[in-house]
């Protein structure tokens, strides 16, 4: 690392920072996607339930509720998650582009030999 000139070192540091942000966003996107899929599957399963009485788990106990209320709550949650997912997808695309650009810049700096002068 000692032989790497400051301009290349700066670019590498920036790349690493963006990479960290990217990984954080990608991980959030994955968990939102999983939760949304589970929610959609549950809503689908609820449609097939004839009983009006359903239960919501809270910790280790189940609270009695009714199908309509649960469906309403879940639909609201689904909307919130869908919105969050769209935002995260946009952020992920933006960061991925930024990473590709930064990677290209580092390769150009190394390829052109500019770093040898430390400029």
């Amino acid at each position, binding site marked *: 690392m000692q032989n790497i000139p400051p301009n290349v070192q700066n670019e590498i540091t920036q790349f690493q920072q963006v990479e960290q942000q990217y990984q954080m966003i990608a991980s959030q996107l994955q968990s939102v996607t999983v939760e949304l899929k589970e929610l959609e*599957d549950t809503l689908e*399963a*609820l449609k097939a*339930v004839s*009983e009006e009485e*359903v*239960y919501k*788990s809270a910790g280790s106990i*189940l609270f009695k509720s009714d199908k309509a209320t649960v469906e309403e709550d*879940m639909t609201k949650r689904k909307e919130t998650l869908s919105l969050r997912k769209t935002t995260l997808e946009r952020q992920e695309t933006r960061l991925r582009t930024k990473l590709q650009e930064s990677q290209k810049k580092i390769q150009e700096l190394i390829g052109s030999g500019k770093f040898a002068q430390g400029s």
Partner: protein
Amino acid sequence: MEDITQLSTQMAMLERQIEALNQNMKMMQSHLHELLVTKETLTNIKDAKAGQEVLFPIGGGCFTFGKIVQPNQVIVNIGSNIAVKESTDKGIVSVESRIEDIKKLMAQTSASYSELKKRMEELDAHGHKMMQQQEKPNIK
């Protein structure tokens, strides 16, 4: 030297993937065990009489006294912290289906694990070969 560095990076990546698959397998095995116990419990509940005295586990190896009120109905989790009332028979079918799903997933994971292990062995052998070649003195 460049090739050895690349090879070492590839091997480190494979090692991480193998470890992740290993962890997944352990989690799936534990989940499968839990489902098999659930199936056995449901089967026994189905055959029980209403009002039959049983002991319910409350964790830590402790039990509390209780009675089976409705042996023909159970509450089943359908995801997202929501549970619904189902017939015990339907509950058993639902658990059996989940057991089959997890078994399929375990078979797939096991195949991927073997594939990665094989690739790792190939890379390892290739690495040894490269090292041996580098260690040979340059005789002119």
